[in-house]
């Protein structure tokens, strides 16, 4: 696996995959896509980078341990439920805030926040598994 072609292409591929995963995540609200599938694509990006450049390089590039990302995801998902407390509606009710920037409509919502949470859980958990398997013995 450790060829020059792969090692040269992998960082670009990984970057593209992570960008694409964010696209899939945001697209998911109204069209096929979403946090889970986006998260899997993102984790594949991490895995490819790890295979090509070594697990240590992948961990350095991530800055934080991937399992912390999973924790962040659970945290975000739970938080999105709590946001409906001040609005006096039941737990996990979808709340929307719409902005108009230069004529374009931008909708932010708690379902999106929940989905971002799912994305991080999947990236974190699958990324941890992938890096552990690639790394071998001690982690």
């Amino acid at each position, binding site marked *: 696996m450790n060829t020059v072609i792969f090692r040269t292409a992998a960082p670009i591929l990984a970057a593209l995959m992570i960008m694409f995963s964010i696209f899939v995540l945001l697209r998911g609200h109204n069209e096929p896509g979403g946090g889970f599938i986006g998260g899997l694509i993102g984790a594949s990006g991490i895995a490819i980078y790890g295979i090509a450049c070594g697990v240590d390089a992948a961990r350095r590039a991530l800055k934080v*341990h991937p*399992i*912390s990302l*999973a*924790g*962040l*995801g*659970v*945290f*975000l*998902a*739970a*938080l999105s*439920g*709590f946001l409906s*407390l001040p609005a*006096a*509606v*039941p*737990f*996990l*009710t*979808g709340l929307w805030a719409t902005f108009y920037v230069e004529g374009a409509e931008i909708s932010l919502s708690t379902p999106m926040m929940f989905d971002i949470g799912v994305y991080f859980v999947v990236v974190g958990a699958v990324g941890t598994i992938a890096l552990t398997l690639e790394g071998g013995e001690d982690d």
Partner: protein
Amino acid sequence: MATAATSYDALNLPPAMIEGATAPADWIVVWPVALALFGAGLLVMLRNQRPLQSVFAGLIVLAIIVSNVYLLLRVFEAGPLAMTMGKWLPPFGITFVADMTGALFALSASVAAFIVVIFAKVELDGREYRFGFYPLLLLLLCGVSGSFLTGDIFNLYVWFEVMLIASFGLLILGGRRIQIDGAVKYGFLNFLATALFLIAIAYLYGITGTLNMADIARKSAEAPVGPLLTASGLFLFAFGVKAAAFPANAWLPAAYHTPAVAVSALFGGLLTKVGAYAAYRVLVLMLPAGRDMLEPVILAVAVATMILGPLGALAQTNLRRAIGFLVIGGIGVLFAGLTLGTQHGIGGGVIYAVHSILTLTAFYLVGGLVERMSGTQDIRYMGGIYTVNAPLSILFIILVFAMAGLPPFLGLWPKILLVEGGVRAGDWVIVTTLLLNSLLTLIAASRLWAHIFWRNGHEGARSEQPNDTLRRLTSDEVGLGLAPTIALVALIVVLGFFPNWLIEAGGVAAIDLLEPERYISAVFAGVPQS
């Protein structure tokens, strides 16, 4: 034919969303679950902050206890409390309901978890910290509380899975060979049970067309008998495996003695009770006709479990395996309550579960201290601990009496209710077995006490030969291990002396399970009548 111009109003559809505001106080139904989930996420992020981890976990579990107490008081005052997620009207939204049964179970579980959070500080090593003992504990508590408070049968399955994943993680945290061995047995049977549970849910959905527990309770009376019996039978089997009832009990003693003592205590206190709780919820509240038809089966399961549990404990030389068999005996008592299916039976069962959650957690913790002092799991080499730590022997004997149901301890009251229920129903098999179970439990548990505290030294050694392999508890172990255990035992003793409110609560719980009008109307409170 509908055209694009048709407005939805013209179709005159019934409303699908809840109108009107939800008072923040109603949120109390989800607090115990949401807080635990929130805390688990937070603690995973703080994975490298070791000192912070236990403090945070303790504070979060404390907050969960406070919400559970408030929840229990609300339920005492106003009856069952419900909230349907995401503003959807039931039965479409996922409903969380707290009735007396759920609130009592949830409170006892959180109290047991709090004691374990403190106790865990004495025995965890770096590896167990690093792989996330505290986040997993909170995730487990989240799954357990969710199971007790959800009002949706599919959601119950989801919480079972959450619990299973967390317990799997906790079981193999130490990474020792024996733990993997135990986890495989535990995991295989529990996966099987959850899969059957899922299949039974699918059947039930096919029969009644709904997943909301209150809605099923309304509709199950008209369901055809054959499919209903199939679904009920599958539920009983699935929950029986989860609860470690005979004949599916073998996984419990094979797995529960392998992890850290704190984990054993958590499992012994909480996990099997969730299976028993689900059996009560599904077979009494939702499918009473199924329970009536299955009564002979439940009777056989209850009798065999009640007898074989303590008999198994009697044959063990491994302390925590023996306690595992006592857990199984207690499950038999819970199924005895289910067999009776009367107010005394169900009420007694619910109170027994509260007692069992607290007492078995304490029992495992005391057992853990004994193991630390003797450095072995084998009761044949534990003799003489009385000379090293006399207070521990008192804790142990109190728990033995509480387990067996001797007065004046907590175990007595639910047994009295159950026996009274059996006498009223004229069900002498249950009455005899309940009494026999108490006797056998007493023999098995006091045998443990005699071997550990009464005997001077190793098995086979001369009686004047002291056991020189024992060591005293360090001050850390006294402060963080012994002190919380004493607190828990004190709570059990106090509850045993003042059981009135508990017995009253058990009665309310039984009525709400047997005649679920209040439960149903709480769930469908916001739904306009069509």
